[in-house]
């Protein structure tokens, strides 16, 4: 009976479905890719920029890092993170020069080094993706028959990558018209960068009609030198070993001049077809469809150079099956479909239906996905296990901290009293509780500025911040009494401000003052209350908050930092005196300035990762733990779920080009999708039946009304 009802309902329903799909009725993809190797992913907000000179956020890198390739990349599986050549043939040789331009020994001291020169050789034979910009006649005129819908309907060509493409991109970084976020930073390092930038600015004012490509190519940047088609050098000021990490970022991906020339066509600009939206790269994929309001599709680049899945990994990784595809040609999939999914609830439901391959875990779905054992170990719920879903966790290379403005008269400063006040606060603000309540346990309490996974992070008891934790026990917080004692020593006995005779009042500036943040802010007030300190929350909008930070008028604030590259310098510079935000406009938002720390920073920043460097970092961490410019906060732990058919997934927090290593078992996905998405029709019939039940009394009343007297 139920079967017959289902069949009938199906026929009825299909009458409405004129646009049928090949897959299940609820399949959100119009074209069923069947057994094709396709990754289904999503994005929650449209990327701002896809130009590698401008893009600087993770949602932008999710796309462009698959299309553009820099000179170097992070090895997918090796830990600690290790750079390896990508478009470069070898790791670069670095030569040092003194102020007169004389070559120095490799062992030369830092103070003698005026310039470092990176000698780079690129792989010969690498080709760009097929693209109409390489069909030179199109620079002058687009064919009349082109309907303007897809660039890939135009005649396409390619060409070989040369050293000029890297040089051209660095010039683009310097060009004020590009508005690269790292232009200011690179001006401090690359020789001639600032001068080139000024010259370009002058040229564009003097000759506004001059084409951008001509303008950029007409001038030479002093620090860049082409040796031949596959060799070039970059000269930077002083010694800056972290520069190589920048060379591994998309900012330094090669850009063909033809792309700039092609996209200058006003017809394309009017259609929003610009270099900022339609990339031209050498990477494993090219952006075939780009509708940032709906979906973006990456397709395998037919010209992709030889690249294979890595062979090297540790035994644990081998056991996880991460070397099954070792030696196979990359990329392992043909297509990646990113669909716009703004809300977490539909995203999560579609993940459970098998229409997305991976998912994060929002707080709404956390209990549905994750369970904790009696011992506190993280695991998946039975439902997730039954579905074959896997869980990956990784402590991110990020720090979320509460900063004290060291320029503030009450909370800042370097006197013993000021230090003790901050130390007392650092004891009572219980970040273990914070992580448990507001992060669903997804995070580790920070003991210092350097997160796990970055050289300089000290694990175990040795790394524990003894200002906050007991001397004898590894992770037992000092008591509130000890904090109160420190507070008394700071001059605020029982939290009373001697000047007013009232509880000490401190101010916390935040952008998150809406209803969603109420619980978090109440929690923070409660922490300060333990010391009888009154915390006043000063809610402010984004603009004013940034302004307060720039002016140094905030007293306390919460902020975060995400690593650009896996070097301690990228975290410790956040406390370097010459980066003080209110003084020098740098990234040191706490305006912390300690001469001893600064001297050690300068020494450490140019060193290789040696035990000596570790010792220096340790000393720096002790200084900052004593001074407490920050409550060190926590390092978030990323939880990621993936389906059984999604292979080779492994957390790599530095690499952005991970997609090429991913493999999918399309057959398994199809089987699961069919199992999880069988349509159910009987409730529809039930609803129709209920409506039919109403018709009878309605008809009876109708008859009664019709037979009644009209007036």
């Amino acid at each position, binding site marked *: 009976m139920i079967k017959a009802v289902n069949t009938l309902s199906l026929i009825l329903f299909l009458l409405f479905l004129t646009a049928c799909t090949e897959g299940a009725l609820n399949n*959100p993809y119009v074209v069923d890719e069947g057994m094709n190797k396709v990754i289904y992913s999503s994005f929650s907000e449209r990327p*701002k920029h896809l130009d590698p000179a401008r893009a600087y956020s993770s949602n932008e890198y999710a796309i462009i890092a698959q299309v553009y390739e820099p000179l170097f990349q992070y090895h997918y599986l090796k830990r600690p993170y290790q750079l390896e050549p990508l478009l470069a043939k070898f790791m670069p040789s670095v030569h040092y020069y003194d102020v007169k331009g004389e070559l120095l020994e490799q062992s030369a001291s830092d103070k003698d080094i005026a310039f470092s020169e990176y000698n780079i050789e690129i792989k010969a034979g690498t080709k760009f993706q097929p693209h109409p910009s390489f069909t030179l006649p199109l620079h002058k005129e687009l064919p009349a028959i082109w309907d303007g819908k897809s660039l890939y309907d135009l005649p396409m060509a390619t060409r070989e990558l040369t050293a000029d493409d890297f040089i051209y991109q660095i010039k683009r970084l310097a060009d004020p018209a590009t508005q690269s*976020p790292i232009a200011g930073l690179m001006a401090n390092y690359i020789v001639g960068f600032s001068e080139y930038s000024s010259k370009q600015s002058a040229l564009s004012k003097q000759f506004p009609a001059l084409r951008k490509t001509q303008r950029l190519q007409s001038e030479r940047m002093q620090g860049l030198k082409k040796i031949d088609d596959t060799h070039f050098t970059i000269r930077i000021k002083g010694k800056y070993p972290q520069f190589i990490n920048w060379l591994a970022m998309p900012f330094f991906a090669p850009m063909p001049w033809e792309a700039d020339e092609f996209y200058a066509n006003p017809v394309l600009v009017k*259609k929003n077809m610009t270099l900022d939206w339609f990339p031209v790269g050498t990477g494993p994929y090219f952006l075939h469809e780009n509708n940032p309001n709906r979906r973006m599709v990456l397709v395998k680049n037919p010209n992709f150079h030889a690249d294979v899945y890595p062979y090297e990994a540790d035994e644990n990784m081998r056991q996880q099956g991460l070397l099954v595809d070792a030696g196979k040609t990359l990329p392992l999939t043909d297509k990646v479909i990113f669909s716009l999914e703004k809300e977490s*609830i539909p995203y999560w439901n579609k993940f459970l239906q098998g229409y997305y391959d991976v998912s994060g875990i929002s707080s709404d779905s956390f209990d549905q996905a994750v369970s904790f054992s009696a011992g506190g170990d993280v695991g998946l719920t039975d439902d997730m296990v039954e579905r074959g879903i896997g869980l990956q966790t990784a402590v991110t290379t990020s720090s979320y901290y509460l900063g004290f403005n060291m320029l503030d008269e009450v909370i800042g400063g370097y006197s013993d009293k000021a230090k003790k006040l901050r130390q007392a606060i650092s004891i009572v603000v219980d970040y273990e509780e914070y992580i448990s309540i507001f992060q669903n346990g997804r995070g580790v309490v920070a003991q210092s500025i350097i997160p796990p996974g970055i050289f300089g992070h000290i694990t175990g008891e040795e790394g524990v911040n003894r200002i906050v934790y007991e001397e004898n026990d590894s992770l037992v917080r000092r008591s509130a009494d000890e904090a109160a004692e420190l507070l008394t020593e700071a001059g605020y006995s029982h939290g009373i401000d001697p000047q007013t005779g009232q509880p000490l009042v401190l101010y916390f500036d935040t952008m998150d003052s809406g209803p969603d943040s109420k619980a978090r802010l109440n929690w923070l007030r409660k922490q300060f209350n333990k010391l009888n300190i009154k915390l006043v929350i000063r809610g402010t909008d984004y603009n004013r908050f940034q302004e307060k930070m720039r002016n140094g008028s905030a007293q306390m604030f919460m902020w975060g930092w995400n690593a650009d590259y896996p070097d301690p310098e990228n975290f410790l510079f956040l406390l370097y005196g010459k980066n003080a935000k209110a003084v020098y406009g740098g990234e040191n938002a706490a305006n912390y300035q300690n001469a001893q720390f600064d001297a050690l920073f300068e020494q450490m920043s140019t060193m290789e990762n040696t035990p000596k460097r570790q010792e220096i970092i340790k000393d720096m961490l002790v200084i900052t733990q004593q001074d407490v410019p920050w409550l060190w906060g926590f390092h978030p732990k990323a939880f990621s779920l993936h389906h059984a058919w999604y292979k080779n997934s492994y957390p790599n927090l530095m690499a952005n080009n991970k997609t090429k290593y991913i493999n999918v078992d399309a057959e398994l996905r199809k089987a699961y999708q069919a199992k999880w998405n069988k349509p*159910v029709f009987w409730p529809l019939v039930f609803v129709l039946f209920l409506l039919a039940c109403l018709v009878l009394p309605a008809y009876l009343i109708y008859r009664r009304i019709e037979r009644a007297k009209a007036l």
Partner: protein
Amino acid sequence: MINYIIRRLLYVLPVLLGVNILTFVLFFVVNTPDDMARMQLGDKHVSQAAVDNWKQQRGYDLPLLWNDGALGFEQASKTIFFKKSMSLFAFDLGISDNGRDIVADISQRMWPSLAIAIPSLIFGVLTNITFALLLIFYRSTFLEFGGLFICIALMSISGLFYIIAGQYFIGKLLALTPISGYAPGLDAFRFIILPVLIGVVGGLGSGVRWYRTLFLEESAKDYVRTAKAKGLSDLQVLFKHVLKNAMIPILTGIVVILPLLFMGSLITESFFGIPGLGSYTIDAISSQDFAIVRSMVFLGSFLYIIGLLLTDISYTLVDPRVRLD
């Protein structure tokens, strides 16, 4: 009528100028060009030189409303207001602060919005009117009480609940439609069934009660009694006479929003992954993109005025007594 239309269209100019000035002042009370630059450039490694460069490249390095450093007409014309806002009167929406052509963006995103809004409006109005007339027909019966009870229940539930529950039951448990997503052309049909259904059901409670009130007022008039006395059935009276005579208030509510339909719905489009214009203005306000904000406010005001004009014209079509002079 032509004179009336021309006169009304001429009124548009001062209204739009006022809207433009108000938008400009409100936007720049909250944001400065420096704030806009920092928002666009991001949080990391942003120097004042980069901010100044951004402003110069985008034309935000001029004074806001009055240029003391210029002479004559240029005191007004060499300002951000003049450069950014006056071109709108020629319907030149220009380039967003993010570097995208605004007209191209709108023309790409308006169709999905319309694909949801038009069927939602048509089915919504038809369903609401039908149910409202039936409630009048079954007046003082348990069907009317039951119907009103359901209407109040439907009104009491948050619109967001309909979306989440609809996606869960129809998209997930019954697996009959995609939970979210969109495809152009005929393929769009599969994706709009659920949002349209939810839109219609979600608006049923308030819609039916509103139309019922209109029809109740109309059904108490003398001509209804005359029609009944002449022997017409109740259904004929309601659907032929009452409905026709209640068209003016119905049109007042509908025609005015017709031109604005393409601007989409923020929540529906967000939950259903519809690539429409619903979030365009809100996103622009969040990202401090003045070029988009001023364009959308201008367009919205203009279309609203056109909607009001169309409403007036539509009155002449449904009621011969109405003349526009």
